[in-house]
Each structure stands twice: as structure tokens, then as C-alpha cells.
């Protein structure tokens, strides 16, 4: 999935990643699980497509990555939010809420 995929609202994957990292650093697999749970398995994404998105977010400077030790004692790459990422999360959450509100409004009045 890329952000242009019709199955997913634009930017939603970014938002989901940012949200999952709000609580602290996670490795890629944990992020994938978090997203699945958070969306109650509604959003069916190929898990692999998470990684290009993570890389794009690294390029944008929203995330930083560090190697660490996972819960099962293996070397894993942990992602965490940068200050820019935090700001982005706030902004996208607000924008997303506004959009969802707007959609609800449209559905109700229709």
C-alpha cells in the first residue's frame, strides 16, 4: 500500500504509524501489529508496505531509527518520533478529525 492507494485514505498509513509511535519506540513488526489492532483488522494492508512508508518518513525527518534488542532478545530496528514527527502527528490528527467530521456531516445530511 502506498498513500495513494484507494483502500486507504491519503496519509492514513503515516498517521497510523505516527499514532503507534506516540507511546514510545517500537520495531517494525510491533508497529505492524499495533496498526492491525488499532484498526480492528479493518484495514487490510500488506505488512511489507509498512517498510517503504517508514523509510519515506525517515527521509522527511519525522522518525529516527536505532538498532536495539527486542523483547525476544533479538537485534531489531526501533523507530521513534522526532520533534518534527510529534508536530506532524498533532497536525495530521487534527486534519484527520476534521475530515472525518466533514464526512459524517455529509452522510447525516444526505
Amino acid at each position: 500500500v502506498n498513500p495513494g492507494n484507494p483502500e486507504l485514505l491519503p496519509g492514513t498509513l503515516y498517521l497510523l504509524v505516527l499514532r503507534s509511535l506516540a507511546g514510545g519506540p517500537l520495531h517494525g513488526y510491533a508497529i505492524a501489529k499495533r496498526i492491525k489492532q488499532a484498526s480492528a483488522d479493518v484495514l487490510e494492508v500488506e505488512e511489507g508496505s509498512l517498510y517503504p512508508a517508514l523509510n519515506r518518513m525517515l527521509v522527511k525527518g519525522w522518525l529516527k531509527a536505532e538498532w536495539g534488542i527486542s523483547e525476544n532478545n533479538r537485534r531489531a530496528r526501533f523507530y521513534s518520533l522526532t520533534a518534527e514527527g510529534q508536530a506532524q502527528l498533532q497536525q495530521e490528527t487534527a486534519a484527520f478529525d476534521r475530515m472525518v467530521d466533514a464526512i459524517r456531516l455529509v452522510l447525516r445530511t444526505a
Partner: protein
Amino acid sequence: MEWWRKLRHLAASRANEQEMEEEIRFHLESRVAELEAEGVPPREAQRLARREFGGTVRVREEAREAWRLGWLADLAADLRHAARSFAKSPGFVTVAVLSLALGIGANTAIFSIATAFLFNRPSARDASTLARFRVGGASHLPVNYLEFLRAQKPFEDIAGVGEERWVNWTRDAETRRTSAFVVSGNFFDMVGVPLAMGRGLRPGEDNTVVVGHFFWQAQLNGNPDILGRSLVLDGKPYTVVGVLPRDHRTVSGFGLSPNLYIPAERDNGMLAVIARLPQGMTGAEALERMGTAARELQRVHPGNGHNWAENLRYFPVEGLESFGALGPGQPLLMFFGLLWAVVLLVLLIACANVSGLLLARMASRRQEIAVQLSLGAPRNRILRQCFAESLLLAALGTAAGLGLNRLLIALIARIEIPVPLSIRLVADVDDRLALYACAIALLCSVAVGVAPALHALRESVLSGLKQSERTAGSRQRLRRVLVVGQMAVCTVLLATGFLFLRNLQESAAMDVGFDTGNTVWASVRLLDSRYRDGESRAAFAREMLDEMQRLPGVESATVANWIPLTDGRSRRTPIRTAFSPDPVTPRFTWMHVGPRYFETLGIAIRQGREFSEFDREGSSMVVILNERMAKHLFGEVDPIGQPLRMRDETVLTVVGVAANSKYGMIGETGEMAMYEPWFQKLDEGRATEFVVRVPGSDGRGNRASGPHAAVVESLRALLLRRDSSAAVEVKPISQALGLALFPSRAGAALLGGFGALGLLLAAVGLGGMIAYSVQGRTKEIGLRMAMGASAGAIFAMVAREASWIAGIGLALGLTAAFFAVQPLTAFLVPGLAPADPLAFSLVVAVLLVVSLAATLAPARKALGVEPLRALREE
């Protein structure tokens, strides 16, 4: 910042690939472990995990895509392509890079010199919080006043530095004058001057010295054990405590480079006020605080006729605002501005050359471009390739140009500047030069690339594999325009160059108003410690004059406190005369001269008399004016016997009027002058500069042999015998006029040089264009020859094209030059018009001759065309 992260990522691309792989493996294995824990059999778990994940190859590809550098990567590819195609034509690359290197070398050299002299970066700790002050309008204060200001504590600290100080350095039996900076005891500590060896001067010291790198190298043989040794300065031993690094730059800027730093004596010398301001203090705040301290100074030590608290000024010691701290920065600034404009023009000519070469190359690349276009390459892709080529050439040219810059700077640094101050060019490669070079490289790549890009665009519009005649014509037309432009710019450069050469010729031949051919100058710097008062100096001078006049070959001898055109002292003071109850305040040159001064220097006395032995301490006070000053004060009235009432109420009687002459500068006009007797109103430090008249030389005084050389030797021996602690320099006055002629010489050398460089580049451009044109017309030439055209007719045909181009360029250039040189009057000797007819005629002659010469080689090639072979081509 994105591109920066990408670049860093790029630097570790192999590690990144491995990390990506490890990360994917970790993901899959974690999922498998989870599924197995849920009871899924291992093989099924593997399959499921893979399916959920999707294609790993695509994932990796997409992740890589995120880090791609976009246009930067394209540029790299274009540059590689350009480099490959250049490798096939080394001749083209050599000419192009050499052209650019000459232009950029000259350009950056001027930049280096200008930054070294004008945009000083003093060797100091945190120079941005150091500032220089002018107090009560004075740039320098007596030491005790400086101490007074310091005691007021307006800032963290205040230190003083005096730049114009000579000391007598005695080594073995020899004494010579050397330049020194005198500084307050806290100077080194407050400024934070870095040292190469040892330490700085400390408060309370009066017999320590810090030596400069060049002095240490040249005069002390770079002795590594110099610390602790002593130098005999002004008859007193000083212990060397430190050595400055090679790149030491003073807080005073302007390339000043003292040989020595010595402590200032309490009761002697004037110091500039340097303050260490608190971080972030503005100029206005600093002035206000200094104002408070200056008002206190005015209260306790009222200024003599001026108020210390007025005319306060503030100059940071580095950056743009530091101009004006030494005052006469403006003409210097203008001169550098002129040089910069000139080197930009030279660079422009060089760029036009390269542009022309690129255009010619396009002829051979026409097919290639057409193929690319027909295969659907977008137009901007073609443009990008054009600019990649010019960028690569500009980068190579800049690199070579920087090499040339180092060479030129090393050469220029050797030139000794004949000013009464020690100045040295230290222009290392620094961030400013690097930045400037980058800017120049970009500018060049655009300047070079525009014409070929325009042409490529047109090519793409006509876009055809077959046509050739029309674009070939457009190419040649563009090139002609370029060469005409080159010729025009070159004309302007030559006009400027010739103008300055004419200026040098005129100033060297100018009548300075005194005899420079039959006079020898003996400068003697006496020690204050041996000659404590004016009277002892007068006794010395009297005795020496007697002896000098007895030397064989000497007709007359005199003494003065300074010699015209080797220095300059002027004064502005109110004077009252019988005709002006209100004082007039003229600015005039002010000298103290001994008996027979006017006779010795061959300056006519128009009215009255000159000074005699009887004009001495105790006799009535007299003065001689030059004609201009006499006229200014008295108009048509006879000035002889008239009193001048000075500010201190002394009255001087005019006893003579001397002919006008030059005093400070060759180019000056209308300078007024007042002479007082050297032996009257003797002050403590009156300078002893002797002049003797040696008749019978060739009138130019440049001969090393003959009466001059003998007198120079006997004078030196006489003075050394009398006082070996005095620094003695003896030379014919004509040799001492270097200072006066320096601006003309420097101007002529630099602008003449750049004119020649521009001419060379333009000639290469014209020659190249004609050669290309001849090549394109081989068939036509062959046909004409086959039809019986004579060699003369063929030559005329080729020369006609060249003369048209040169003619149009010349006409445009002469018009532009006429206006461009108008503001240069300030640099020229009086009487020389900027649009000097002789200079302009020379420009026309030189340009025509060079254009013809540039055409010769292609013309000979045209004559060598074999008709049959030419016709068989294509």
C-alpha cells in the same frame, strides 16, 4: 534538510541494504514464531507470514526509492556523460579550461587581495566584540588619556595600539630603522592575540618585545631559540618573549604587518583606542558609554581647542563597518572596485570564448542531439546536458584558476609597497575565497552555457535529422555575436589599461617643482634617549650640515623634518592676518626646513628671501609661504613683512614666497604650503632629514656611479661615524619617490596587465571563430580557387569577415569605453583626460593589428585548401 539526510544515507548505502534485509527477516521470523505459538505448523506458518508480508523484492525496491536523490542523481549522470565526451576532445577542454582559469585566476586574485586589505579578520579572540573608537575626533590619544578612559571602566577593558612607530634596531655595528607597533600592557591579553611561540607582552613590562613571523625569518634567521634573547632597540635591550604566527593580522587592518610589538612608553606616543565590548552590545550603546567616559576626560583634561566628548565614532575591527577607522579608505575602495569590474570583464571575455567553443562543438553533436530528441528525450533534458557540460568546464576552470590565484598571490606578496608603514599581503585560502570561487564557478557555468543552450533549444524546435544549413547559420551567427561582444569588452579593457599606462608616463614625466635629479637624501633617525631636547638635535644638525657642505662634490646641504613626496603632513588651523580679523582656516602642507633648503632643492624664491642661519631659536619668528598660500591669505597685496597670528597667539612674519611644488602626491593640485625654520620652535622629536645638492649628474639621478654614488657613500660614512645608534638611510631623492609614483605604477601594471589578458583571450576567440568559419566554407573556397581566384582574393575574403567583426566590436567598445572611463578622472594626473586621444588611438591600432594576426593562421589554412579534395568532400 531532506537532501542532506539522503546524502548521509547514500554514504552508507551498503550498510543500509543489509539493515533492510535484517529488518525484513526479523519481521518474518517474529510472525512465524507467533503463529507457531498459536499452534500453526511450521511450514504453514512460514507460508502465511510470507503472504501477509507481500513481495520482499518490491518492498525493498520501494524503500530504496524513498532515498533516491532525484535531480541530483540525474545531474551526476549528466556530468559523467559530459566527462566522457570531453575525454574525447582534450584540445577543446585544454583551451576552454585555460581560458576560464586565466579569467578566474585574475578574478579571485583581486578578491583575495581586496579581502586581505579591506575586510580584515584580525588575529584575536572573538574579534566581533572588539571595536575601535575615535574620541574627540582623534584616532589616536596620548597614553595617559587612554589610561584615564580605561580607569572610567566604560567596558570590560580598553587597550591601546600605535601603528606608526619606527625604532632603531642595532645589531653588531649596524643600526637600521624598523617598523613597530607600540601597545599598552594589557593589549595582548585583552585582544587575545595568538602566538606561534612564547607569550605576549604583559602589563608593567617595558623591555620585552614580540617579533613578527617575517621579521623572525628574514632578520633573525628563523632562530628557534630566539625566546629569551635580546634585541637592542632604540639603544635599549629588549627581551624577546614571543613570536607571532605567519598569518598574524593586526586589529588595525589594511594589511599592516609590524615587525615588532613593543610596550608603549607612558609619556611618549599616541595610541588608538581598542575596546572589548560586552557580548551583543550595539554600536549606539557602546558610543553612549564611551561618551560618558569622554565627558569625564574633558572635565579633568580639557582638550586644546576641541572637546573630547564630541565627534565620538565607533568602528568594529572586522567586517564592512571597519572601513574608515584609518580614514583614507575611500580611494582605496574605489580602486578595488575598479579592479573588480575589470577582472569581471576579463572573465566575461573568457566565458565568451568557452561559449563559442561549445557552440562549435554542437556542430559535431548535432546528430546525437537530434537522435535523442527523436527518441523522445524532453527538451529540458537536452538543456540539462548543455549546462552539465558548462558546469563541468566551470568547475575545472575554477580549480585551475585557484591554482593560478595561489601563484599570483605568491608573486604579488613579494612586491614591497613603498609606503612609510610596513604592509604585507597575507591572503591564504579561506572560507570567503572558497565561497567566492563557488559563486564564480556557478556564474561562469551559466554565462558559458546560455548561448549553447539557446542554440540547442532552436535545434530542438527545428528538430530534424536532415537539416543542417539553417542551424549551422544560427550557430555561426551566435558565435559572431559573442566575438563582437568580446571585441567590445576588450576595447573597454584596453582603453582603461592604456589610460593608466599613459597616466604612469605622464606622472613619471611630471614636473614635481623641485630638483629630483641632483639631490641626495640622507634620513637620520636619532634616539630620543640621546637627544633629549630640540637643542641637542639642533647642535647635531648644525654640525652635520657644516661637515656635509665640506664633502667633495656637494654644492649645498640642508635639513628638513620631512621630504616632499616621501611622506605628507598637512595641517588645518585658524590664521589671522592684518586683513582678516576673523581667522581663515586653510588646510595646508606644513614643513620645517633649514637654511638653503630652497637653493638645495632648486625651488625658486619668488619674493623676499629664504631662511638663513640667523633664523634660529631666539630670533624673530619667520615663515615662508608658497605662492598659492600667499595669494589665498593676501590676494594681490605684497605679503613680505606681513604678520600671521596663529591660534596660540604667536606671530610669524612672512619673509619669503616660494614657487609652488608637489608635496604629498604627484596628482595633487592647488596645494598650499607653509614653511617654518627648522631651527626655530624646536620640539623634542624634530626629525632630521638631510638633503644635499650634487650638481653635474645626468639630470635623472638614477646613475649608480658618478658623483652621486660617491656622495651617497661619504654621507653614510660621515653620519655613522658621528652616531652609530642612529638609523641612517642614504639614497638619491629620485629613488625615494617610489611612494609618489606607486599608485600610478600599480594602476598601470594591474590594468595594463588585465588589458593584455583580455586582448589575448579575445584574440583566441576571434581566431577560433574565423578558423571555424573557414572550415565551414572549405567547399566554397575550393570552388573559388578552382575558378581561378587568386591567393590575395581568398585572403581578402577571410580577412573581410574578421575585420567586420573586429570593426563592429571596436565601434561598440569605443563608445562604451568613452563613457566607462569618465569616472576614472580621480585616479589620473591633472591634465590627462579620461578619454585621452592618444590612449584611444593606441587601442584602435593594437586591436586591429591583433585581429589581423588572429586571422593569419586560419587564412593560411584557407589558402592551403586543395580545390579538388575540397569539392569532393560531402
